[in-house]
């Protein structure tokens, strides 16, 4: 679960990381007041979880509080659209923060290294906008350091990493401290990733996190009730947000064939088959193991919130999930949701015969295999 910038900075400052002073505002008056308290030299940043928010006009620098407040007032309630997020997102909050003078920009992150089965710290002297290009063209410019799960980081390892990154003397011990703070924060908040880009070195030699991205492991949210309550706000799409509220694994993909299946692997495979048959999947949706009719109905409802959907593919291999429960859910969904779209269902495994019997004589088109189901639904939605 991605946190907003203001939440990320709050989290980091709890672990001692220096962040710019600032607060979040939901209207013009609040924004003006915060900007006044900060002396008028402020940056106003839209708190939306989408890429390209700067280019979309969601970030601006000011030298007086009234103008900053006015800009914030206009921004709140407005929809920001970027190349990364063409559907756009409504701005509900802005962060009003002090402007940071930057002499040099570094990059620092902590994330999971799946191959090594350890946490990984990445540090570079060349922070800022072009970090991905640096990673691709000169990987040696990024220092990598694995964290021992039992010992954590040793001081000597951190010192070595800072020296290897080639940071100037003024930044060295501050960066060593920041690395340890970040690793501690990662472990104590179950973060999937913490990224500070840039870490700014100010002209007077202070190291400060000028931006921050934190993402928390959703499986660990039970440990953090505060984050849990904001979970659905963090989805980038309204249907995905509704899915998060319902506890359904759903990803919107933009095509016209709605897809429901059980098990992530089988659903991904269904998407591949729809693509192979010449269609475009509208979504990924995993009903989960052991789904009952009520949940199946709720899943159907979710898929149909997407107006692009022209037909449905249902692909179930019963194990814990029983075929007849899925069939009951489909039929209940059909009658209560007035579904008037072509539907192809492929049901195999536990309860398949009972399920298919229930669907007999209805408008639902049966298919014997996943491949056949994909071809049929693509033909019906052309």
């Amino acid at each position, binding site marked *: 679960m991605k946190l907003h910038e203001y939440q990320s900075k709050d989290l980091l400052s709890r672990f001692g990381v220096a962040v710019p002073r600032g607060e979040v505002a939901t209207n013009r008056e609040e924004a003006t007041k915060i900007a006044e308290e900060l002396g008028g030299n402020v940056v106003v940043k839209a708190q939306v979880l989408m890429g390209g928010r700067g280019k979309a006009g969601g970030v601006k620098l000011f030298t007086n509080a009234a103008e900053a407040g006015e800009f914030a007032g206009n921004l709140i309630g407005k929809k920001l659209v970027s190349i990364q997020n063409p559907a756009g997102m409504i701005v509900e909050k802005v962060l009003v923060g002090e402007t940071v003078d930057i002499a040099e920009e570094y990059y620092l992150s902590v994330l*999971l290294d*799946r*191959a090594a*089965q*350890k*946490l990984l710290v990445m540090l570079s002297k060349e922070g800022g906008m072009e970090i991905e290009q640096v990673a691709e063209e000169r990987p040696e410019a990024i220092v990598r350091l694995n964290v021992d*799960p*039992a010992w954590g980081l040793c001081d000597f390892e951190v010192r070595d990493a800072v020296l290897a990154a080639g940071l100037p003397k003024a930044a060295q011990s501050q960066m060593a401290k920041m690395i340890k703070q970040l690793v501690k924060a990662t*472990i104590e908040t*179950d973060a*999937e990733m913490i990224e500070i880009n840039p870490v700014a070195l100010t002209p007077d030699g202070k190291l400060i996190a000028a931006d921050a991205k934190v993402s928390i*492991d*959703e*499986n*660990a949210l*039970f*440990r953090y009730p505060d984050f849990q309550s904001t979970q659905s706000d963090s989805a980038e799409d309204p249907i995905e947000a509704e899915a998060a509220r319902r506890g359904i*694994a759903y*990803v919107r*993909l933009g095509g016209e064939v709605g897809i429901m*299946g*059980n*098990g*992530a*692997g*089988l*659903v*991904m*495979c269904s*998407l*591949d*088959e729809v*693509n*192979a048959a010449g269609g475009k*999947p509208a979504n*990924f949706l*995993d009903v989960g*193991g*052991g789904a009952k009719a009520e949940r199946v109905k709720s899943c159907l409802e979710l898929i149909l919130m997407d107006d692009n959907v022209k037909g449905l593919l249902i692909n179930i*291999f*019963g*194990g*814990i999930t029983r075929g007849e429960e899925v069939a009951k859910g489909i039929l209940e969904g059909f009658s209560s949701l007035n579904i008037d779209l072509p539907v192809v269902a492929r049901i*195999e*495994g*536990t309860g398949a015969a009972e399920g298919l019997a229930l669907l007999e004589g209805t408008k639902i088109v049966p298919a014997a*295999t*996943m*491949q056949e189901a994909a071809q049929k639904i693509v033909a019906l939605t052309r």
Partner: protein
Amino acid sequence: MAILVDKSTKVVVCGMTGREGSFHTGQMIEYGTQVVAGVTPGKGGTDHLGVPVFNTVKEAVVATGANAALIFVPAPYAADSVLECEAAGIPFVTLITEGVPTLDMLRVANRLKANGTTRLLGGNCAGIITPGECKMGIMPGHIFSQGPIGMVSRSGTLTYEIVWELTRAGLGQTTCVGIGGDPIPGTRFIEVLEMFENDPATKAVVMVGEIGGTDEETAAAYISKMTKPVVAFISGRTAPPGKRMGHAGAIVSGNLGTAQSKVDALLANGALVADKTSDVPGLIQSVMSKIGAGV
């Protein structure tokens, strides 16, 4: 012959008295698995489904000689349960539970590796089955059959899909291993491939991977050294980059972990890669006849 579990496997089920635990324990007993004990703290001394329940794993091991554990306990307590099994001296533990925090799994996987006494399979997996001998997991038993094919997979339902194809084509299985879809699996593809390579009964291997992580690529390098043929299938070929597809494991970032990089690595190392799940039996038949192991 088989790998990891067989007729002699004596299973203790942690979290046996819960809803999922009860249902699947019943199914396992029906399949013929030796379920010798259950563990639920506070319910020790009772019986459930005709199986004695203990308060701790250690008590269960002492009383019944259990040598494998299957865990259904809820995600917040799953890591603790794995470590309890390790402390009780159980050499093989399968974790079915889905949604265990990644950092918990990171600590557990590293500790088990350092101690070297217990192998963990999962979490977020369907379990393991040696057809006709031992079903230790949540898979529907009737779709499996005995034969010479070893199978290893990250996805439960996709395993069922492909096993059903194999069984209908007359291609039975030695053992089917679900390693699970989480980012930090207790047992990885390469380790299972090594076990199949050393298992005399296994003549060919089916490997089912998906996008995310680089374990398929790592396993591919080992495949070039194997004497047994491997047929692979990778799901998520058309998943858009950067989107998370339900499995915590199925995340694509940059060029690493994409379906294409996995397919390329597998092909370059001599594996056959099926485009569709339904192509797997045909590819297996072709490699089996090539090595003279007719079926």
